[in-house]
């Protein structure tokens, strides 16, 4: 039997390529394209074509609620309006405040938790899984029920704060106050996503081999020194990766904040995406909002690119 197989294999190998295809089925090249084509087609249809359409719309005066009005080219008018608009800059400021402080707290607490979990106390796997739960929830549903928690009189948050600090629960309102509302959204996002940063930092900490620490002990390096010279630098690429992902996500943030504060009070928590939604789907200024969308995309893409380049440099160190 096996000599027949050997003969068959030699026969197959001896046939010229064109005939070979018919004998051995579809060629690798065909298969590669068949396998990739549906994905590329779908992405072209739902991502790229709309992106190009958005770029086109950003130069017109199209309004989605008046589709039959003749479309006029307005050139760079929307881009100039947006870059000079105080309302847009206020939204970008609110977004920057949100992104900065959420990254700050999530990295601090997330890394701290990861460090503590890496001490490997009894039951740490179980408690890690418990800590992970908030980040798996729907941000919209979370924003909705935190509105309940933040109610001044009936909400758990004010009650808990008053329990620990003695401040009267109805004396402050997280969602209604212009100074507190931006912090209210930072708190909820930190509650949700600190586990995310923690998980990534934990992977970073676990990737540091024990022998490095042992060598440091032999050299009589203090714990403090070990932390600054070994732990932090080796975990840094992971921390930076977490910061990148959280930064991109929070720049795009919409659902949690829109359900928690609606952008209010006034527009103190109106993030870029919320302004975009208002202009596009309430004021129906399609051309204007298309320009804004392009600006936002370029901003994220550009910042992410710079960041990834820095990250690659850090990884190579």
């Amino acid at each position, binding site marked *: 039997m096996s000599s027949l197989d050997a003969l068959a294999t030699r026969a197959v190998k001896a046939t010229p390529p064109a005939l070979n295809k018919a004998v051995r089925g579809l060629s690798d090249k065909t298969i590669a394209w068949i396998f990739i084509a549906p994905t590329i087609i779908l992405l072209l249809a739902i991502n790229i074509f709309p992106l190009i359409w958005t770029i086109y719309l950003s130069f017109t005066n199209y309004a989605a609620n008046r589709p039959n009005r003749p479309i006029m080219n307005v050139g760079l008018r929307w881009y100039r309006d947006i870059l000079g608009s105080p309302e847009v800059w206020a939204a970008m400021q609110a977004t920057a405040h949100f992104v900065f402080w959420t990254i700050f707290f999530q990295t601090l607490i997330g890394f701290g938790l990861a460090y503590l979990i890496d001490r490997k106390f009894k039951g740490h796997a179980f408690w890690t899984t418990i800590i992970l739960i908030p980040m798996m929830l729907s941000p919209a549903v979370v924003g909705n029920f935190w509105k309940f928690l933040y109610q001044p009189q009936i909400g*758990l948050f004010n009650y808990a704060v008053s329990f620990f600090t003695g401040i009267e629960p109805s004396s402050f309102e997280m969602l209604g106050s212009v100074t507190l509302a931006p912090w209210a959204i930072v708190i909820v996002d930190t509650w949700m996503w600190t586990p995310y940063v923690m998980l990534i930092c934990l992977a970073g900490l676990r990737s540091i081999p024990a022998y490095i620490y042992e060598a440091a002990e032999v050299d009589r390096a203090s714990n403090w020194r070990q932390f600054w010279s070994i732990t932090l630098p080796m975990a840094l690429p992971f921390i930076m990766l977490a910061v990148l992902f959280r930064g991109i996500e929070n720049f795009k943030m919409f659902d949690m904040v829109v359900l928690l504060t609606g952008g209010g009070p006034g527009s103190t928590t109106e993030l870029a995406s919320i302004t975009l939604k208002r202009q596009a789907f309430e004021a129906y200024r399609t051309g204007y909002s298309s320009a804004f969308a392009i600006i936002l995309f370029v901003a994220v893409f550009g910042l992410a690119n710079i960041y990834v380049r820095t990250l690659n440099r850090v990884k190579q160190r």
Partner: protein
Amino acid sequence: MSVTLSTAHSVVEPSRLAKRSAGFIVILYALISMAPLFWIFATGWKTPPDSISYPPKIVFDPSLEGYCNLFTTRTRQTADYIQALGPPQGTCDEVTRRREMVIAGASNYAPRFVNSLIIAFGSTFLAVTLGVFSAYAFSRFKIPLADDLLFFILSTRMMPPIAVAIPIYLMYRELGLSDTALGMILLYTAVNVSLAVWLLKGFIDEIPKEYEEAAMIDGYTRLHAFFKVVLPQAATGIAATAIFCLIFAWNEFAFAVLLTSGEAQTAPPFIPTIIGEGGMDWPAVGAGTTLFLIPILVFTMLLRKHLLRGITFGAVRK
């Protein structure tokens, strides 16, 4: 001179005290972090007056009113009318009548939940299918511009959903896909396929090429080897990817609220609209939220091992 025998342990192992204190802080954080969830779970079992009591009630009498209100629409009637109706049919009827209200029909929660199931599972199935084929091709073949293509696939996730929704809204309006399950499935698939390709490529990269090459030497075609050799080995990776795609589609709000209104609306846009008599019906919202969270909690438990890989697009592996 005396020699003290220290308790033998690796020099890098933390002391018992360090471990205990670390454990204490972490457990404290875990409990505090669970408190809001416990609260919303408990609220689902309170009566509406209890849920808005001041100060908030930690101990209360449980009631089915939240869950009943979640699934029904009710009208307020006079006591005489209620008397004339005859005996209540079922616990929810009893509970509702005690509030001097009568059940008028089913609420929209169940249909919305079902929509969530259909759209989430449908888009996940599609995304994973497209993803596994593409990931195999990227992994095994030399695709021209592979790195650029992969990065392009990833960068489609950098646009704010609202920005993507603007042209999609117009496009779907033209094509008649507005407020349809198919439209939402296609959209979620397009968003998820980038995650699926990145994750599955990572998983497939880890399957040694030798297996399918051996199969092909034995006479299998490439296609045959893919189905018979590679796919079974990628099963865990496929399952993990599927669950991540599911979680995204399940929790999604922005597209759902902008592109659907009645027919294809999923649960996340619906839950914040559950109004009771004096504002939001918090027990019903609590009940709806709890039910909505259960599949995700189950999946998180199932997914523990692959969680890190999934949330970092496969960039970080344990």
